[in-house]
């Protein structure tokens, strides 16, 4: 019994034989496929998506022999073959657009973040700061308990600002945030330097309570899991208030911040939007920091004060 032939086998054979365009077309038709029609090069597609290049699209014929034309002619018509073919006057000179010879020698451009480095550090430390009982005894609380004849099960401690609660970062990778990918990664780098471990990261898109995951790739995502109670949360998102405005996303983020509040999680949102576009309801549920150069160190100090409150 003959072994089955797969399309991959046909592709490998075509590649190895490198037949003419017409022969390739015939083989593909035998496999039930058809070559796409040649059309205007608007540079659609792909990463060119941007419809713009890479300057190396798929090409037909540049230097490698011209393809056969696609016109179908009646069988009675005799297609002539050239009796003579003059060689193309290809220049023997090197390509004047040779990349290596012409590349500027300056150092690579520096990344310009939305916040300056110092502000980032202060702000992110402040975002991760929560008040937790420290080493010192809260004498006032002790005296108060004793005067009210309440037994002391444990010594009350004074709250101090601390990064010990860890930090959970929610990174919005929805379409509206695609131009801020590098800024988001810059924040993560700053957080790891400012806060250290443990930092947990969750990538989400638009509706954060649907699905999310530890990586940008959505195949790794799972249903939403809330961070541990009391752990501060930093959100890197326009929360639906940017361009284009997405009210559904804003509602979803509002719902999330409320549920996190109930769990005792402090939420700080870094949003690359104009302040006027942030709804008041959202500001009530979390701390919104405008993610732009207008935000200075003063804002970081405010966040620290608020963490004490």
């Amino acid at each position, binding site marked *: 019994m003959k072994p089955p032939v797969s399309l991959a086998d046909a592709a490998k054979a075509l590649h190895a034989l490198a037949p003419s365009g017409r022969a390739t077309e015939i083989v593909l038709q035998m496999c039930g496929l058809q070559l796409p029609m040649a059309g205007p090069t608007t540079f659609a597609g792909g990463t060119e998506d941007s419809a713009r290049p890479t300057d190396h699209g798929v090409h037909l*014929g540049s230097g490698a022999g011209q393809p056969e034309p696609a016109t179908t002619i009646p069988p009675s018509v*005799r297609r002539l073959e050239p009796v003579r073919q003059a060689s193309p006057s290809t220049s023997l000179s090197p390509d004047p657009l040779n990349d290596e010879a012409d590349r500027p020698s300056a150092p690579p451009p520096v990344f310009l973040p939305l916040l300056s480095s110092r502000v980032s550090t202060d702000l992110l430390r402040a975002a991760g700061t929560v008040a937790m009982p420290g080493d010192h005894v809260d004498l006032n609380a002790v005296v108060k308990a004793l005067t009210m004849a309440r037994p002391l099960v444990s010594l009350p401690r004074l709250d101090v600002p601390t990064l010990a609660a860890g930090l959970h970062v929610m990174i919005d990778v929805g379409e509206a945030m695609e131009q801020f990918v590098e800024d988001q990664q810059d924040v993560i780098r700053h957080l790891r330097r400012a806060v250290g471990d443990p930092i947990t990261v969750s990538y989400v898109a638009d509706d954060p309570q649907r699905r999310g995951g530890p990586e940008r790739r959505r195949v790794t995502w799972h249903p939403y899991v809330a961070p541990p109670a009391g752990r501060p949360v930093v959100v890197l998102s326009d929360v639906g208030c*940017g361009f284009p405005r997405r009210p559904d996303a804003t509602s979803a983020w509002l719902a999330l911040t409320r549920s996190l509040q109930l769990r005792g999680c402090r939420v700080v949102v870094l949003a690359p939007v104009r302040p006027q576009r942030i709804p008041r309801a959202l500001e009530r549920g979390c701390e919104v920091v405008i993610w732009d150069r207008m935000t200075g160190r003063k804002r970081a100090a405010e966040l620290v004060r608020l963490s004490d409150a």
Partner: protein
Amino acid sequence: MLDDGSIAEAALLVDSFGPTSPLVRLARLASPACRVEPQLLRRLRLDCVPEADVSVEQELWFSDLVASRGQAITFSDAVSRVLRSRLREGREREDATVAKARRAIAELHRDLPRVLRLEDELAWAEIYNDDETIRTMTDQLLGALLAGRDGLDQWLARAWPNLPAGLKRTPQGEQLAEVAAARGAIVDPVSTGSHAPNMADFAHLLPLATVLLARDRQTLRIKVRPDEATHAIDVPDTRSQLLSVRTADTTWSGPIAGGHVTTLDIGTGAVALLTEAGAEYELEADTEHALFDIEMLPADHGTSLMISFDDADRTHFMLVDTGTRRTGELIEARLRDGSTRSIDVLVLTHIDSNSVAGAIELLRNDDVELMINDVWFNGFEDLGQS
């Protein structure tokens, strides 16, 4: 093609954002770039439009000015044209800012392929009215095409609408236009065949188009319908599709593009067809419809020629001399078997036995004699009549 209508629409769109708004100012400064990445937008905003907040970046990214977005954005061709034109008009007023934008684009694009950087540079050359740079870069593009740079023809087709007008007006620009058009770009129509650019050096880069021919006796028609065609050749798919047709007597050259059929008188001989790519095709001589067919019959040491020609009704035969007796037997056999229906005129030029012996054989039989309609004899009687 960027016509006045699409440019006007684009201008209205740009103005709808407020002609002096931070968004439009940012877009204008970014317009010479072949692509605008997030970091380029950031750099232009911070360096050149510092009063603009981060929202402007996002608003521009998702605005209707943008034709496509992914890892970078690009403006539509018409919008790009409008923005660059306005940048050019306002350049002198904001010279320092424009210079900063130019530096930013050059630095951020330093790692892009040379051709994309050249695209940026051409845009700036147009904005700064730098014709010398445009000429130099046009020559570089042509040189790179000739050197066989991979993918350059595809890039040309994509970039063509926004290349400087100064480039397009030159003879070299016409050659680049042909390459771009062959790869699908919509370019301005070429004027006439006599001004068609010389594509001999570049024809091998272009895709081929099939041209259908119909040879009908002494006439050749070019670009006929498939149901009329007898032959097909391949020519480089330039807008003008120049073809040379050479016969024994004449040579014709001209464009064959467009919807009309070109008709040429070519005689019955062989015809050579030469394309811009240097390919030579040959249409064999039309022996089936030759004016005269002359057959030398086997006549040993004698002479005998059978001359035939066609008219609308039938084939006519003229037999000149009849060779030897054996020649006569051969001719009789052809008359009897119908391969030669009849002889319109038998010409006897002289009475040498190796010329008339066959005639004696032929005329001996009454039925064969009936198949010979007339006899011209080099004798006193016939000569007297002439």
